[in-house]
């Protein structure tokens, strides 16, 4: 292995000796790390309850519920909540995802109590004011009208429908106009009552604070929270074969550029070959200026301003895809180039130089991603979300260094079938 950068950086990486992990009696997990270099604090986290739990007729329910939480609680009105947050120069966002509902917040450390109090109130005691629900509904419907005109979003949504037929991942988290219209206040109240609870909830707190101070406050605010009816997350259905036809285009008249997404179902974050796939993805369409894909589509052919590949990972088998925005006349040419690169990626191992470059990139960039409190808070949260272990970032250089070009080829072949690529296109 060649962890050129690892030696002198080791001391700055988080590990069991400087992350405090505390589990509350109701199963909430709290992770805290002090950083007194900046006067701020970040609180990130998630709780169970995402769009996986929605019925087809009510898509968008998890997101709608999350965005209503801060519109009024038993203790504060919408105006009082935002007046408190914004006057402190703080922020708190709660948003529904596929598997979980996530929250992110930051403030000056002097306002940590305010952040935690508002977070606790919002997830435990929202009152769902009817007039706020209608305000939000109008905003969501406008977002969906804008989405229908957004070539990037529509190409991605079309790809999801091809790659995941009948699977929850084929459904957009923000729903459709008719499903958002169908959601009632009772649906929101019920979703909250059923799914929100301490089981599976994780918080990570990073900043100019002492762990004991955070633990005490969180125990006080969330320690007595119970919800005996919280359902276990049901397992995802097996990965389906892609839907025919494999290529679909959404017409959006009047636009100047077409966007395309070409891909397959990728590994989940916990998969054994995730790191091999991730390094492979870096070589395929990220490293340097967007890897091999950027080199052929952008640099050599001059077809696109952006052309890259992406591997979602995540709690389940997220997509692994190549994406580009091209002149509508050049869609076929760009697709041919992408297909050729995917064939090459699945037929021959990456070179030793390519592998060494990407390994070095992964190891070297780790401290950069941990520089800010929010970067550190997300990184620590992932340790818990994916059971990586508190020492994961200290072991990371070795784990990356152990991946071979054969491992990458194996992963490439396992996930990519060049003859069965889903292709979503949106443009004029």
């Amino acid at each position: 292995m060649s962890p050129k950068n690892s030696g002198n950086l080791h001391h700055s990486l988080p590990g069991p000796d400087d992350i405090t992990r505390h589990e509350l009696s109701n199963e909430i997990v709290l992770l805290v790390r002090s950083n007194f270099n900046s006067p701020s604090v970040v609180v990130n986290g998630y709780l169970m309850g995402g769009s996986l739990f929605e019925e087809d007729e009510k898509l968008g329910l998890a997101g709608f519920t999350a965005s209503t939480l801060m519109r009024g609680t038993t203790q504060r009105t919408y105006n009082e909540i935002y007046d408190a947050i914004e006057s402190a120069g703080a922020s708190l966002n709660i948003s529904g995802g596929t598997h979980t509902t996530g929250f992110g917040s930051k403030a000056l450390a002097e306002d940590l109590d305010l952040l935690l109090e508002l977070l606790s109130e919002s997830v435990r005691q929202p009152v769902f004011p009817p007039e706020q629900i209608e305000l939000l509904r109008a905003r969501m419907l406008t977002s969906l009208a804008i989405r229908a005109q957004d070539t990037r979003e529509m190409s991605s949504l079309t790809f999801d429908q091809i790659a995941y037929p009948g699977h929850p991942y084929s459904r957009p988290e923000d729903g459709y106009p008719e499903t958002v219209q169908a959601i009632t206040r009772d649906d929101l109240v019920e979703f909250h009552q059923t799914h929100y609870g301490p089981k599976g909830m994780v918080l990570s707190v990073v900043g100019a604070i002492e762990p004991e101070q955070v633990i005490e406050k969180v125990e006080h605010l969330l320690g007595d929270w119970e919800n005996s009816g919280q359902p276990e997350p049901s397992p995802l259905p097996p990965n389906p074969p892609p839907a025919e036809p494999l290529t679909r285009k959404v017409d959006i008249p009047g636009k100047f550029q077409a966007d395309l997404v070409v891909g397959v179902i990728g590994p989940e974050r916990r998969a054994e070959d995730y790191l091999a796939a991730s390094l492979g993805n870096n070589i395929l369409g990220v490293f340097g200026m967007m890897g091999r894909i950027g080199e052929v589509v952008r640099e050599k052919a001059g077809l696109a301003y952006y052309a890259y590949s992406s591997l979602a990972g995540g709690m389940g088998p997220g997509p692994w895809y190549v994406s580009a925005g091209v002149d509508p006349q050049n869609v076929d040419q760009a697709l041919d180039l992408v297909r050729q690169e995917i064939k090459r990626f699945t037929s021959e191992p990456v070179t030793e130089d390519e592998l060494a470059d990407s390994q070095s990139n992964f190891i070297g960039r780790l401290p950069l991603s941990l520089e800010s409190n929010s970067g550190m808070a997300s990184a620590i949260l992932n340790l818990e979300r994916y059971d990586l272990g508190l020492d994961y970032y200290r072991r990371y250089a070795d784990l990356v260094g152990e991946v071979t070009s054969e491992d990458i080829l194996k992963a490439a072949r396992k996930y990519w079938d060049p003859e069965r690529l889903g292709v979503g296109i949106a443009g004029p």
Partner: protein
Amino acid sequence: MDNSFTKTTLTNGLTVLLKEIRTAPIASLWLWYRVGSRNEVPGVTGISHWTEHMQFKGTERYPAEVLDKAVAREGGYRNALTFLDWTTYFETLPADKISLALDLEADRMYNSFFAPEEVESERTVIISERQGNENEPMFLLAEEVQAAAFRVHSYHHEVIGDLIDLQTMSRDDLYQHYRKHYVPGNAILTVAGDFVTGEMLDRIRELYEPLADGSAPELTVRPEPEQSGERLINVEGPGETTYVQAAYHAPAASDPDFFAYLVTDSLLTGPSSLNLFGGGISNKTSRLYKALVDKELAVSLQGGLIATIDPFLHTIVATVHPESTAEKLILAMDEEINQLQDSPPAQEVVDRAVKQARALFAYGSESITNQAFWMGYAEIFDTYDWFLNYLDRLAAVTPEEVQRIAQKYMRPGNRVLGIYRPAENQEVPA
């Protein structure tokens, strides 16, 4: 926050600013050139941005494929940005690798190839970048509003440039632009992070002092005459959503009014972070958000000022509520602005803006990249002291000044009002 830094000028005119920060084993280097769309004339609009792209196409010592990989291999990231007043290149790296950035930036100040075939392949890339922008209604509207606001001044056109110029500009145009503006006397080098200033300065002298002298080319700025009367812009295009953009002629960043205007904007549309890295906060308690979004005339609202050399624009952008109209929204917006013109806000409004700015500063300071960014950015339109005194200057703003700013700048006669409307007779998607 420790505010000590070192500023010096090399014999060939290069300005250097260095700041030691020991919070992480990271260093960030930014090389700024005082050239952007402000320096462009019709026929070559977009040339600064295109030149920036050509700086990634390689030199003899760092061919493109080597250049692309060198920084990434060390785990660093790099990029470049072109804006109204400036073009800048940056690399953020593990601190013990920052020499690489020093070396490659010194090299490409003079030695980029601008190979004709690379110019041609980049032409289509940049046109593609422009097409991507054109897919966004907000870009189409903003481009027309900006053009209407500046009849005379070169802030008239978008940084990306006009399509016709992107189709016709030549390799020689680009190369001349590069040679004219990429000289030490027209550049600012800023480095922040984990290093020792004396050693860093020695290394910089070694690499940059031998570069040929060259001073900033003369630029004849054509000041925008005062606007007399409101200008109205209508743009039609695909979609079913209406957008409104109001753009008021605003003071330059170095103008004493700029800070009072920041507080005014914060009161009306929410605090702007001005950070490139570090993020902002929500604006739900701003006066216009309450008057427009909470009253169901808009579904979103944003506003902000940009720190520029010459007077630019204060913009307010709103997405119209599907049950409302642009006209109703504008009426309610003007009522809110009139109210501020009629009576000064409470002192606590200013105090609040200062607290918000203090928090946003703290978030931004966590990024060494952002700290190096600010040293150069502030030097472009003023000096680094502008940034260091930012919180004190905000705190000195009085409620009466906020009222005066609203009266002086936020008049219909001083603005361009643009509306993007869904076109009639749109093709129905298949």
